[in-house]
């Protein structure tokens, strides 16, 4: 069985070497106005391409929503 990570609450199968940038790319068109947290910590945009997602990581890919 291959390794899985949680992306926005959904279990996602990981291809070895998958980076945060890969995950952002599959969910959004480019990543403008997007931020990423990994296990409750910010992954700065400049580190998306070099941050490899590990098994059991909790990734949150976030963007603007309406809110007071």
């Amino acid at each position: 069985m291959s390794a899985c990570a949680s992306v926005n609450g959904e279990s996602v199968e990981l291809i070895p070497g998958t980076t945060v940038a890969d995950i952002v790319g599959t969910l959004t068109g480019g990543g403008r106005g997007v931020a990423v947290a990994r296990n409750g910590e910010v992954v700065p945009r400049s580190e998306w391409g070099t941050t490899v997602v590990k098994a059991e990581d909790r990734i949150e890919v976030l963007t603007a929503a309406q809110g007071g």
Partner: protein
Amino acid sequence: MVIEAERTDPFMVAGERIGSRLILGTGGAASLDSLERALVASGADLATVALRRVDPTARGSVLDVLTRAGVRCLPNTAGCRTSRDAVTTAQLARDAFETNWVKLEVIGDDRTLLPDAVELLDAAERLVDDGFVVLPYTNDDPVTARRLEEIGCAAVMPLGAPIGSGMGIRNPYNIAMIVEEAAVPVVLDAGVGTASDATLAMELGCDAVLVASAVTRAQNPELMAEAMRFAVEAGRRARLAGRIPRRRLALASTPDEGLPDLSEG
């Protein structure tokens, strides 16, 4: 006239010119289209947005609406219940929206959505230390407001009544006390139900008013947005003009001098 006032008496925060004294919260709008029309009608130069999970099926973005309307984005930490969550959310918002401004919200009760002062003060301190321009949503408590200012918040945003309640300003004396003491801008945040509430806030000396539900959930959001714009402007002018003192008895505005003698005979 309204535009003129926004130019000559602009709302300033942390040394930056905002312009309009009406800040719009974007929560509660039925659609992005409805939000955009309300935003334009409000004349707001600053609007709040929240940070939530990406929805790959979503069409359009609230950020695009703000960009088209030329309105600056003020990220909030809505939904956070601890200092830690609020600080992380603010940091994520800074990365997403390239702004170090944050409307800091730390909620302590699900039913009333009232702020948790202890967590709020802790988060405010951490964020100020991290270089954020912090605009905290707070209780209408003058002591908490003073503490937030001492920590280095760029403004204080006391509530008039619970979020979305439309109950207006339940304790105008506290709002007036906060205004009297504060050296940073005071923004009335939460509780506004209709235009007169926003006017009262400005008459009490608030520097600006933040309105979300009262506009976005009105039957006609665009029209209410315009009403709020005029209400804030009217209240600001009334405050600057200086109201007459309240008296228990009448004070004639027409002089007795020159009153004719019209008695019989």
